[in-house]
């Protein structure tokens, strides 16, 4: 009788042990197969660029590529800055002060990808529409961004993202 019970307990233990080894082993083997899809070393290597800002005039904007994404760099006019700083932060759909989004009031650096579903908003070229708030307008589903790149109207949930960057000199920044 007692030896029967021992047998059951032993078999249970073996089942659990074997099951755990197989489970953990399987999970460990799966990880490389999943992780291989993440951005690889060559994608990460492209991760930083330097941009010379000196040719950009007041009110002008340029678009450059960083990690396959368009980066909007805009030299804001005094009016742009005023409009961005005047509006009470609490009135915004995604509240964020203009001063938290720039390192230097004149220079606005943004990832130019609509936070709704990833289209490129218009408003970079001189003749473009700028939307109702003087910044950018996304034609895909109608999101309006202001002169700080913040969402003001439309389906996009968030402000245009600010990429990591730093000023190397007064007229040169490094993105990434």
């Amino acid at each position, binding site marked *: 009788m007692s030896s029967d019970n021992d047998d059951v307990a032993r078999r249970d233990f073996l089942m659990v042990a074997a099951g755990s080894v197989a489970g953990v082993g399987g999970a460990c083997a799966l990880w490389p197969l999943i992780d291989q899809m993440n951005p690889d070393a060559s994608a990460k290597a492209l991760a930083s660029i330097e941009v010379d800002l000196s040719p950009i005039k007041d009110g002008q904007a340029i678009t450059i590529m960083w990690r396959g994404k368009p980066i909007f760099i805009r030299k804001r006019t005094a009016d742009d800055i005023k409009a961005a700083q005047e509006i009470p932060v609490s009135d915004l759909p995604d509240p964020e002060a203009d001063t938290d989004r720039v390192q230097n009031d004149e220079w606005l650096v943004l990832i130019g*990808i609509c936070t*709704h579903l990833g289209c490129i908003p218009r408003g970079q070229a001189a003749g473009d529409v700028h939307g109702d708030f003087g910044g950018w307008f996304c*034609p895909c589903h109608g999101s309006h961004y202001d002169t700080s790149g913040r969402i003001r109207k439309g389906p996009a949930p968030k402000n245009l993202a600010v990429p990591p960057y730093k000023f190397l000199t007064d007229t040169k920044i490094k993105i990434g």
Partner: protein
Amino acid sequence: MSDHSSTYEPTNGFTRWLDERLPIMRLMHGQFIDFPTPRNLNYLWTFGAILTFCLAIQLITGIVLAMHFIPHGDFAFASVEHIMRDVNWGDLIRYTHFVGASMFFLAAYIHMFRGLYFGSYKSPREIIWILGVLIILCMIITAFMGYSLVWGQMSFWAVTVITNLFTAIPIVGESITQWIWGGYSVGDPTLNRLFSLHYLFPFIIVALVALHIWALHVVGSNNPTGVEPKTENDSVSFYPYYVIKDSFATMVFALLFAWFVFYAPNYLGHSDNFIEANPLQTPPHIVPEWYFLPFYAILRAIPDKLLGVVTMMAAICVLFIIPWLDTSKIRSTRYRPLLKPFFWLFVITCLVLGYCGAKSPDYRFVEMADTQKYTSKAAAVSAKEEILSKNKHADLEIIESINSKEITYDLKNTKFKLTNQVLSLLLTFYYFAFFFAIMPIVGLIETPHKLPGSIAESVLGKSSADKAQ
């Protein structure tokens, strides 16, 4: 599978030898020759065969295309053009694959509405139905991935918009999206994996189709009356009756297919896809292929990003549970007078949703407005102020128009408008109400028409059916 295999007689030495080792001929004979099938199936029941035909066409043309296609961001677009211009018969093969995707969805949607109308999802056919929903899900994924391979503007931006749906997932959305991209945006690694998976998925579909037909052959086909066969008199053997009927229908379908391939191959496509992908410029109006339009309309109808994505997924996934949402014991809508109008309204809803998906979100289906002409901007603005002072909710717009002589300012006062956004939302509401409210409630309160006593009776009339017994 059931025991319909016994009439198989191997006719020569080889088949006898084979039958003792691998009774595959016996299996085929039982399932596709002798198989008893309700005698009253109409042409809507031929779409299963038509779908099998479509799947075969996609596999054959796809494997051939893959011999010439280059899954690399710099070469994909050019390689598709190379297929079109240089490869022997390349244009025919590519157009067949491209039109084939549309034909496949056309047949699949008819097949699904057939199942919905005749209650083919009800016990004991739930598993057949669920496998079908899995197949349409895989088809959607496959067609989306295939479309991306062309690497034109529409391909690129469709991939961008659809992969960005995953960013709606809280917290991990961003990492999942980058994992799908294999980078920080849609690019070369993305294209390469989409190609790999576009090659894989059709074979998953083949496996699902095999299970679908297996499950079908366990319980047998439903039929337009929804009454199960009771006597031998209710069924006929699959061969020759349905082999001929299915073949004939497939031929007719192939004529339509061929008409598109030879006379209007690009009719169902979008001209922006003849422009190579440009990550710096979004086309002014992104639309998916026609077969995704209803789902796209549902996605855009909901103003919240996460909720929009969830609703769109739910629109397909709700199909998994309808065997349990429908409370009626009667299968065929023929005998369900109360459900019938709701069913047709549902069909119309799906079609109009497709139309909404093709139009821009602020398109106005109905608009009633007064327009007043002014010659100076100041006059138009002051008129606008005046109306606003009386009614601060007035919907006013000043439209500047320039013709050869002068500039005029039209003050448009919109009294009533039905925008795409609002209509899509109403239709989305009905789409879900049909499953979650109408199906359960109608089944409980409806008095169905009297069902025929048997399939034979419905075909031959009562007296001759009795005689034939």
